């Protein structure tokens, strides 16, 4: 039972992790909590619904198109809103992103309605291992593999490419980055694109495992933030790790506490974490 819960946690955790990486990057570079991230995630899932179900494209294609479209929306948000507020107090940008969240969520409501949607109405029976010891669906295996691929891709991107280094430099000091010759606007666009793709992937995988609703992302926003904080703001690896910790502990918590308190688990861990090691598990302490 514990093993099964652990597995469920890993699946949920990888989805949270994907969303949290982008959130963490934005937090690190642009210095604000992006509260529309959850709704971007929802949007990604609905885009995939549009392509896969409404336009009957193959899943992989729908996935790619939706991810790209979500990235585009993220970039548009940057251009229309956040770019103009960059020199302002981070709270103002944050509030602006709350507004963006409202807009996105209600646009989804407008186009797709409030009802639950499914990529596939038929259910999938699990592969049963060890005499019912462990059950896992094919979809879930796909989710784990896709999440892993994306995470590796992010890792390679950040460490092997100049752009990755530029992102980290900008997280430190945008003005200085600019006089070092970094085209900061372009890097910011890339950052949004990347977070858009990752968050869309998270949304699609989530919907793939369960279902779509207009509030799916908003509901997942706090765990996403918890993962970011847990991992240390601005640390993508921390965010991955944080996501897993949140996912696993949330699922496994039902072994000891009532399921009604499950949503509290993420925060409790996070708050304990803050008390014990405020810079986050992987965060760095800087003067």
């Amino acid at each position: 039972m514990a093993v099964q819960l652990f597995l469920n946690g890993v699946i949920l955790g990888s989805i949270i992790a994907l969303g949290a990486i982008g959130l963490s990057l934005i937090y690190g570079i642009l210095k604000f909590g992006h509260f529309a991230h959850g709704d971007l995630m929802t949007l990604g899932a609905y885009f995939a619904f549009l392509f896969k179900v409404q336009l009957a494209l193959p899943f992989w294609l729908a996935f790619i198109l939706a991810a790209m479209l979500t990235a585009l929306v993220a970039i548009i948000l940057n251009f229309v809103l956040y770019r103009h507020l960059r020199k302002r107090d981070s709270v103002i940008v944050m509030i602006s992103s709350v507004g963006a969240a409202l807009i996105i969520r209600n646009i989804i409501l407008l186009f797709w309605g409030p009802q639950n949607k499914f990529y596939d109405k038929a259910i999938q029976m699990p592969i049963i291992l060890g005499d019912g010891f462990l059950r896992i669906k094919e979809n879930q295996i796909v989710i784990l593999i896709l999440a892993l691929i994306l995470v590796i891709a992010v890792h390679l991107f950040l460490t092997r490419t100049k752009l990755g280094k530029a992102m980290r430099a900008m997280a430190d000091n945008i003005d200085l980055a600019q006089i070092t010759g970094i085209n900061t606007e372009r890097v910011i666009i890339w950052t949004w694109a990347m977070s858009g793709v990752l968050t869309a992937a998270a949304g699609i995988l989530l919907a793939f495992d369960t279902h779509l609703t207009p509030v799916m992302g908003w509901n997942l926003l706090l765990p996403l933030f918890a993962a970011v904080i847990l991992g240390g703001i601005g640390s993508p690896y921390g965010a991955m790790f944080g996501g897993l910790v949140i996912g696993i502990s949330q699922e496994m918590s039902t072994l000891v506490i009532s399921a009604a308190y499950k949503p509290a688990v993420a925060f409790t861990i996070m708050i304990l974490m803050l008390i014990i090691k405020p810079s986050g598990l992987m965060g760095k302490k800087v003067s």
Partner: protein
Amino acid sequence: MLKINDIYAGYGEIEIIHGISLEVKEGEIVSIVGPNGSGKSTLLKSIFSLVDIMKGNIDYLGTDLTKLGTDKMIEQGLSFVPQTDNVFPTLTVAENLELGAYVSNKNLKDRFDLIYSLFPPLVEKRKKKAGTLSGGQRQMVAFGRALVMEPKLLLLDEPTAGLAPMFIDLILDKVVEINKTGVSILMVEQNAKKALAMSDRGYVLAAGEKKYEDSGKGLLENEEVAQLFLGG
């Protein structure tokens, strides 16, 4: 090579620089000195379009810098060490230096080696985050980063502030040495006597205006300048 023509610049609505013209010729070392708050840093920043330019233009090798993106300026051989916040604190020293070569695709290993040999204290700090360095060490990193790219024109805002005496001399010597290789230098210094002594030309700024302009030596010998700005 750099010609600032009657520039007015400032922050938002506030105008700080009131019509300054200044020139750096090929191969020159030019110093700007003046009291605190007189607008020296603002003037340097205006070259890089880091402040709001209200009027005037800046000609660099035939292009108007006020219309050029910063990344393009770097590509064209400009390099700038700001007065404050001039390192990336969470990046390591090595990464800070690498970023100096951001716009280049060349392998610059020997440039890095050169910088380390110039500032031995940085060698053991190579893998350390720049935010943990002492004030003087940061200054070395910042200066080093500007050298990575072999610039044509180097803009330095108080490069020796916070450095131990041996490094002040080292840096100033280095500036002369670099200059000999054909790099033009425009620097702001409060170590004014030393700076002017090695400069081809110097400007004295006060309250956002140009008060004096002369050869480095000329300014040093000017009684009034010495009294008001160079500490007697």
